[in-house]
């Protein structure tokens, strides 16, 4: 077989220099790609262009990735032969209504250097595969953004979803604005706006979103800050009679290595908020113990500050009842669902406490005795084991949760606390015992606390994953790559629900340890 030079096929223009412009739009079903396409057709026709659009409707509209395709050409009296679908290396303008869809466009070869203007909204709509991971399964946006820059001739990328929401509109309007602002099509701004006005539905909001995106694309306005993390603003409230105790705790923070002070401060607030001042002291004891064994850059102390706080603030019914009955929480819910002053909000909480959780919330001896009783368990599952809907906007419902949260000062005497403290002590001692030989491994052991989360079965599954990851510890101690492997085991444990990835990773560890 003979090898030929690659055929680089480029569209050639018509006799009067008129050329076909190709435009593809990738969207997630339900984002209004159809509306956008109709607008583009309308603006092209209004400017004396022939235009044709196609799409693949059908089941694709149900939240799946969809492609819309438009071709247009200046009308010189003859009808051009338009293609019906985008072709690799032959797209002039690529509109992506979500960041990963922009990535998909690049992956499919629709974004070509020296040719394609890529107009992409950088917000994320997580795919199902990203959401179902027990840990963090979200795709790496950075790689996609880097590839966009390499693949496209011109990139117009910012968060058009946020802009649209800000304007009270939907993303099709801001995408249309970005298209206009990019200058990729030879049409004046007012012809786009005329199309929106003619559509007759939500015109003002659409025009606002269009305008914002247009200006951002043009560079005359700064695009919104990248959709990122806006930590909730929490306020610390210390009643007068606790002030001295709290100040004493805060003073102890200064004795910690600078690298760990911030996180330990957050941990301390969390722990005291969870229980009381004495609990904060217990927490600081743990962090200080780690700090004494640690050296710069004090990764062990930081891990201790983070995970000891999480370990001490275990998720029990008391905590849930406490969090659900706070004033700040009520306000947060009202803000989130946008309740206006003249509206009334009803609020229902979904609970389903199981026998284990119920008995663990009893005084230790009573709880332990009941947990051993088959009859008690049978009684519970027959009469009490069911989902409960509690209305926290009513006095009865709120009062019930309030009463449960009022048990907080007694938490130390409850069965659950006894079990949790034993577990925490064993885990922390383990890490401290390793620290003198291998600081990194000890920090990883502390970080394994991340595996324990959830309630009921989820909590049990987390515990079992924690145990399995920790079971590799004897094999990893003394190895130079021990910490690295411990981290890999934990990552594997967070990759899927059943722990299949963890099984594989454990086998690998066993093979080299044997």
């Amino acid at each position: 077989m003979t090898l030929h030079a690659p055929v680089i096929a480029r569209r050639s223009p018509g006799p009067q220099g008129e050329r076909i412009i190709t435009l593809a739009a990738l969207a997630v079903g339900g984002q209004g790609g159809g509306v956008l396409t109709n607008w583009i057709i309308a603006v092209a026709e209004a400017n004396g262009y022939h235009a044709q659009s196609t799409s693949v409707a059908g089941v694709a509209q149900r939240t799946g990735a969809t492609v819309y395709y438009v071709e247009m050409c200046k009308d010189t009296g003859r009808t051009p032969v338009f293609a019906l679908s985008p072709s690799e290396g032959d797209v002039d303008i690529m509109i992506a209504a979500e960041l990963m869809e922009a990535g998909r466009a690049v992956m499919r070869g629709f974004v070509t250097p020296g040719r394609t203007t890529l107009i992409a909204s950088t917000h994320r709509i997580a795919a199902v595969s990203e959401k179902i991971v027990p840990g963090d399964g979200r795709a790496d946006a950075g790689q996609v953004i880097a590839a966009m820059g390499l693949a496209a001739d011109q990139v117009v990328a910012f968060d058009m979803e946020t802009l649209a929401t800000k304007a009270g509109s939907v993303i099709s309007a801001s995408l249309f604005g970005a298209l206009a602002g990019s200058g990729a099509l030879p049409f004046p701004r007012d012809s786009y706006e005329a199309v929106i006005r003619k559509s007759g539905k939500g015109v003002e909001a659409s025009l606002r979103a269009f305008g914002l995106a247009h200006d951002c694309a043009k560079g005359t306005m700064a695009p919104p800050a990248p959709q990122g993390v806006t930590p909730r603003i929490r306020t610390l409230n210390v009643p007068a009679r606790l002030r001295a105790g709290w100040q004493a705790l805060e003073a102890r923070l200064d004795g910690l290595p600078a690298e760990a002070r911030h996180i330990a401060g957050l941990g301390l607030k969390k722990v005291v908020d969870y229980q009381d001042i004495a609990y904060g002291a217990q927490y600081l004891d743990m962090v200080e113990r780690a700090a004494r064994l640690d050296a710069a850059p004090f990764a062990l102390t930081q891990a201790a500050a983070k995970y000891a706080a999480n370990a001490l603030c275990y998720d029990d019914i008391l905590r849930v009842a406490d969090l659900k009955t706070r004033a700040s929480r009520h306000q947060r819910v009202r803000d989130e669902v946008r309740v206006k002053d003249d509206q009334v909000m009803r609020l229902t909480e979904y609970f389903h406490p199981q026998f284990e959780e119920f008995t663990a919330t009893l005084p230790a001896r009573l709880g332990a005795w009941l947990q051993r009783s088959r009859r008690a368990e049978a009684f519970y599952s027959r009469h009490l084991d069911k989902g409960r809907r509690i209305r926290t906007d009513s006095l009865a419902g709120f009062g019930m949760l309030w009463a449960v949260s009022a048990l907080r000062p007694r938490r130390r005497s409850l069965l659950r606390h006894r079990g949790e403290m034993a577990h925490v002590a064993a885990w922390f001692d383990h890490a401290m015992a390793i620290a003198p030989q291998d600081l990194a491994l000890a920090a990883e052991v502390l970080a394994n606390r991340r595996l324990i989360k959830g309630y009921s079965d989820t909590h049990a599954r987390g515990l079992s994953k924690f145990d399995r990851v920790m079971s590799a510890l004897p094999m990893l101690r003394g190895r130079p790559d021990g910490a690295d492997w411990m981290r890999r085991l934990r990552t594997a444990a967070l990759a899927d629900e059943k722990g299949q990835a963890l099984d594989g990773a454990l086998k690998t560890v066993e093979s080299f340890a044997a």
Partner: protein
Amino acid sequence: MAERSFKKEVEQLRMGAGGTFRGEGILAVTKALLENGVGYVGGYQGSPISHLMDVFSDAQDLLAEYGVHFENSASEATAAAMLAASVNYPIRGAVAFKSTVGTNVASDALANLASGGVTGGALVILGEDYGEGSSIMQERSHAFAMKSQMWLLDPRPNLPSIVAAVGHGFRLSEASNTPVMMQMRIKSCHVHGHFTAADNRRPAMTVSDALQNPKRDLSRIVLPPAVFLHENEKVDRRWPNAVDYVLENNVNEHFGNPASKIGLIVQGGTYNGVIRALNRLGLSDIYGETDIHILCLNAVYPLCDSQILDFCDGKDAVLLVEEGQPNFIEQAVGHMLYQNGRTTVLAGKGALPMAGEYTGKRLVESIAAFLREHAPSLLPPATAKTNEPAQSDIPDLSTVVPARPPGFCTGCPERPIFAATKLVQQQLGEHHIASDIGCHLFSIMPPFDIGSTTMGYGLGPASASALQNRDKAGKRSISFVGDGGFWHNGLTSSIGNASFNKHDGLIVIVDNHYAAATGGQDILSSRAQNKSRKTNNPIAKAVEGMGVTWVRQIDRTYDVTTMRDTMIEALTSPEEGPKVIVASSECMLNRQRREKPALAKAAKEGKRTVRPRFGVDEDICTGDHACMRLSGCPSLSVKDTGDPLRDDPVAAIDQTCVGCGNCGEVADAAVLCPSFWQAEIVSNPTPAEKRRASRTARIIGWLQGRRDARRLTFA
């Protein structure tokens, strides 16, 4: 009520001669039918011609004005059988369905229709679901045309050509007494364009006229000895007549320079792609002007031997662009050339890929390779050069970008059914699960991963029929069928079969009140009031009528606990025969379309309205995402907390939530976690309600303040 309304667009159908008609391909077809004096239309929805059925439906009144009968056929078989009205009467009839699944269902009727032949023009409009975006097995309609001897049109994908093809279809059918199929590819169904309209015509004879003056002809009935005559008629009379019509009316088109030594024979549907490829190779301008000779087959069956031989005459090589496999046209053309002793080289599959859609890239590469081999002087040297950087500089994103298959909509009532099924399997172990066609087939995707096979519309339970456990206490099969599939075919093929054969399996009928996957059309069991159709016929009653004794009707599928417990009861019940659960809740897309405007209007008018929404307490959520493994709702997603103490993103519900309740029900049934809450926002509350709310808020506020005074808080 269908998902998309064409009420506005169908007004264009009244347009008279000379007007410029703008719209989608399917709308153009409807206009063409009216211009050609069609007497009756029917069909069954399915992508990509669902909208065609919706257009017909929305144009019902207009069709009636012209004396045109329209009905929503129960299945494609019904639609094809409907064309029997054109056997004895000179009435033009048209039916539409998706191919090849619809053609498969219809093939019994189509074969009988093709055997006896027709008097009035009979047109089958096929929405060809092949290539990207397809939801079915990849097969060709061409085989049906060949086996039953019906003619197949594959017009160029632009509105004027499609409209012309409808007229040719009727006249060709009448000239050759043969039903004609016209295929429209996915994208030509949805192509937006324009054409010059002609006047609409009333049918010369209406179906009412026919009923008043019945006619019969024994020789048209498919029974011996007439059937032996039919076969001869097909080859002696109908085929030559069809070829004559195609040639005399220039159904197939020539483009380019006849003197060219190189030729392309293309299916009409691939013409635009081929021209684009030639343009990109510098061999055609944007209007299709080219030096290469092209024969464009708008009629791909029958082929006209003389036309093809003439075209090949004097050519060194001809490339046949035939999408799909097997390569029926190429085989026929090769046979013609050989039989007639021609030496023209025929290239087809081989130069072009054997299988798969002929995308722009594939056409460019294949045509370039063909020309290099057979006409190297044609390819200008410039095409081999470029200053574009190599594509390899761009990183491979295939491991980064997540797949995004279609899934259940926000608030879909089918999601809880599959969450319950997942919980049943957690409790009773994995089961054999047979799936069906419809939205519910999304259960095969994550997060549900449920289902082993799908054998056809309404055939879910039928496809589990062999799997009957001899051990009565052993595991039973679970099968699903939707309400659409149930009425299409499932009632007899699945339910009747299971009842008759005493199959022990569990059959879940997913009833969302519409044929939802195809766009929300009404069916027999729809709860909507439809002025032209009889709805509100309960599925459970029909199931009982088939002899099933274990039937449970669940009227709120969101109740995951009941759903799960009923399934467990079915799988463990000692009763013989099929256990049928009719799981009914309205399609959320349709429901929202109806309720949202009504709610907004009521709120505006000052009436008391309640809007539900769900949410998650991020402090209580631990970021395990078990809820998402049981839900997959688009409005339930992950977000960062921004809290340095936390590693994993937490669950969050966005503003698109419709408050269906699935989140809370799943958290309850699966005993997940207490982080879900449901808010109900009451607009225009009653004065008593307002007083109560503010009194409660005061007391709660006092309690909260009292507690906060005694402890340190950071919230």
